[in-house]
């Protein structure tokens, strides 16, 4: 018989070598370009992004990041949260706030040669409102009535209710303007894969599962007022690669295979900075990564159980440990701390108090515990179904934070069943209905606290709202948010938005975990990359290489 000599020793050796080698990965020499390095012309930016959407243009933030490169909006948001011109040079609300008039730049064309004019803009409004962009549609829903071309360069938008934040909302890339001719004459598949806009780049090849090549629009004339230069992009191409694994993205950056990467894991943040890579970090306004309780079915219909769950969590410790000081803790479940009208009172409504959690659970009759320490009532365990979209909505850091939640809630007697759901299951809606979960987790980026209208408007047969993840139908809360949306005085508006956040916190309908971040790490030989301020996506129009 053939002998099988033991392979243990070489394996142990290989393991040690691997550990040492991998540990050494964080070290590295200087990557700074020479002091006399000059701006180069052309070149291809190799950019590693986390997720690949199904279409370039759509209602998901990953699509917004891409479509920002290809489509122009009417207006842009600068870093001081001011609305600045883009395709529109000026805009004005009527005295009754029921109509908005936009005056367009002259001489702007789409990359198919057709002009950007008022008729096209009106067509795009109808297209968005009809669901051409799912997120644009929910922003416009309840407010948008019609759009009309007043003359070639003037478009008037009519609203059903006053909406002072209307123009601000249009800065999001869900409102990217497309060629009417392209929308009318090309197939949906063509417009999905390569929408025609007037932006700094056009979509070249899309190698599904690998990358999208964006070509420079050499005739680009319409950068937003907050761009760093006029005219076409400096670089010729952007190779937008899809690298889902965070470690691989960082490795690609360090190996020089990527000039810039998105979503740097918290544990790599410090090391990447020490190695000389430029770091950009943007806390997205809007709804943070939060947990919503299912208030329509299951144990969390009981407000005291919701509160008990929240009191059982030391959310800040979890986030600070896993997030390594990079990911900000967020107590507010309605909006993040970078959102205008943010309520600190709502954010501070609950702190870790295990004793209080236990008292509430005892009072609710959950007095017994099984051998594992989970509470039991009438023979039923205090189960909590907690599905989450791992890898898409929740990244690796987020998944670790959720495990912290699971472990801490156990001390109070909750048996939290974390269910990582693949994209296919998420898309099927299996976990999104009232029977799908006890707790849901997720974010919704926005430029203002008006996001509460989307997340908390009632879900009624005559006006469905599938984005009310707490299934909390409350006319009082909706009225509060609607009044805020229409308040013309900014202070009054912010006060009403804050009141809505406190209303949500008081009833423990939703509580925050951490703020959603957009992070970038950029090789110092690539300059001029910046993050746009509505959603934190990378902007490559001003990027250039030095050498």
């Amino acid at each position, binding site marked *: 018989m053939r002998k099988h000599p033991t392979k243990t020793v070489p394996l142990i050796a290989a393991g040690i070598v*691997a550990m040492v080698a991998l540990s050494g990965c964080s070290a590295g020499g200087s990557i700074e370009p020479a002091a006399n390095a000059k701006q180069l012309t052309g070149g291809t930016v190799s950019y590693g992004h986390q997720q690949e959407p199904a279409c370039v243009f759509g209602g998901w933030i990953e699509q917004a990041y891409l479509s920002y490169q290809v489509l122009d909006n009417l207006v842009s948001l600068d870093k001081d949260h001011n609305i600045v011109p883009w395709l529109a040079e000026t805009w004005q609300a009527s005295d009754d706030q029921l109509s908005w008039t936009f005056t367009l730049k002259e001489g702007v064309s789409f990359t198919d040669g057709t002009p950007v004019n008022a008729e096209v803009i009106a067509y795009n409004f109808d297209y968005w409102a009809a669901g051409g962009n799912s997120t644009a549609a929910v922003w416009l829903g309840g407010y948008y009535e019609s759009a009309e071309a007043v003359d070639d360069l003037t478009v008037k938008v009519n609203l059903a209710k006053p909406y002072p934040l209307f123009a601000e909302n249009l800065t999001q890339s869900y409102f990217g303007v497309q060629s009417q001719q392209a929308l009318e004459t090309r197939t949906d598949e063509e417009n999905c894969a390569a929408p025609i806009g007037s932006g700094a780049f056009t979509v070249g090849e899309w190698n599904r599962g690998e990358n999208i090549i964006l070509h420079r629009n050499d005739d680009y004339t319409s950068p937003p007022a907050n761009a760093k230069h006029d005219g076409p992009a400096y670089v010729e191409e952007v190779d937008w690669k899809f690298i889902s694994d965070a470690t691989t993205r960082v490795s690609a950056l360090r190996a020089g295979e990527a000039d810039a990467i998105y979503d740097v894991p918290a*544990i790599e943040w410090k090391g990447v900075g020490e190695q000389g890579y430029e770091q950009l970090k943007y806390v997205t306004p809007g709804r943070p990564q939060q947990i919503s309780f299912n208030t329509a079915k299951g144990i969390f219909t009981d407000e005291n159980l919701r509160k008990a769950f929240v009191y059982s969590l030391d959310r800040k410790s979890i986030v*600070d440990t896993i997030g390594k000081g990079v990911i900000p803790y967020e107590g507010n479940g309605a909006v993040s701390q970078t959102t205008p009208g943010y309520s600190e009172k709502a954010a501070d409504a609950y702190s870790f108090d295990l004793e209080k959690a236990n008292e509430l659970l005892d009072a609710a009759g959950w007095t017994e515990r099984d051998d594992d320490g989970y509470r039991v009532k009438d023979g039923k365990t205090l189960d909590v179904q907690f599905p989450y979209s791992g890898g898409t909505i929740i990244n690796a850091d987020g998944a*670790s934070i959720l495990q912290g939640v699971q472990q801490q809630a156990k001390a109070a007697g909750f048996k939290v069943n974390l*269910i990582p*759901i*693949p994209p296919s299951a998420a898309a099927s809606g299996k976990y999104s209905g009232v029977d799908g979960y006890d707790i849901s987790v997720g974010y919704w980026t926005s430029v203002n606290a008006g996001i509460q209208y989307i997340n908390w408007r009632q879900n009624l047969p005559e006006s469905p709202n599938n984005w009310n993840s707490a299934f909390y139908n409350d006319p009082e809360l909706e009225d509060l948010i609607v009044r805020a949306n229409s308040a013309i005085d900014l202070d009054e508006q912010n006060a009403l938005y804050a009141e809505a956040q406190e209303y949500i916190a008081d009833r423990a309908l939703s509580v925050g975990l951490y703020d959603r971040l957009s992070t970038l790490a950029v090789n110092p030989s690539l300059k001029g990359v910046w993050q746009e301020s509505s959603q934190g996506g990378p902007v490559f129009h001003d990027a250039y290489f030095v050498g």
Partner: protein
Amino acid sequence: MTDLRQQAVATAPVRRHVSAGFVASAITLGLFVVAAVAPNALTPHDPFAMDFTQALQSPSLVHWFGTDESGRDLFSRVIYGTRESLAIGAGAAGLAILVALVLGSVAALAGRIPAGIVNRVIEVLFAFPTLLLALLLVSILGSSPLTLVIAVGLGSAPGYARMVRGQVLSSKNSGYVEAARALGHSRSTILRQHILPNALRPLIAIFTMGVGQSIVWASGMAFIGLGVAPPSPEWGALLDAGRAYITQASWLTVLPGFVIVVLALAATTLGKHIQSFLEKGEKA
């Protein structure tokens, strides 16, 4: 690989030589069994207890395998994960053998048409990528240990089915079966007493090796996110969780990976020794 020569069940005594490899692999597997049955006997730490002050500690005398991002003791997690990992491995290998037995026996013993159909089924299953099958099952059933057992079990069954078919065919055409027929034994007696015992004996070795291979497969699937739900310390899930920290805390990936390799090696070595032992018995 498998020797298809079959003879009557040996009865003569044979002198056995117990090799060091056999002893080492048996002891190693024995330790894993202890870890699966009584994990608390091997580690004092709670595998689920988080201690944020101890997050990402490298291996030390207190934490032999270091700690993870939440301060959980990795050695304890590996030890406590043994039960689930072994159960998935043994379950998948068992399911594979069971499916293979049915398909392989029918393919060998049934009439021309049903055998032909089953052979085509085996070929189709062979051509179907295991990973794709796993994705399909996860989409339908959701991620769970049972899904992993089914996915890995069904994925590896066709290979075993071909093996079983060959063994049964070989037994069916052997001299001792002819002799049994000549003696007037019924078909069912021949099948039960002569064909199946001889055909299935090599599967003991195959099963042992299959456990190790199935654990590697299941871990691979868990690594790509198709595994069990957190905070399970199943080994593949540990690999998956450690992946995000591989450059800063490589022990989170390397050490569970190393344990998987050790188990797979031990199971394979033991299986080969059993196989060799059985072959010698047949030749004696």
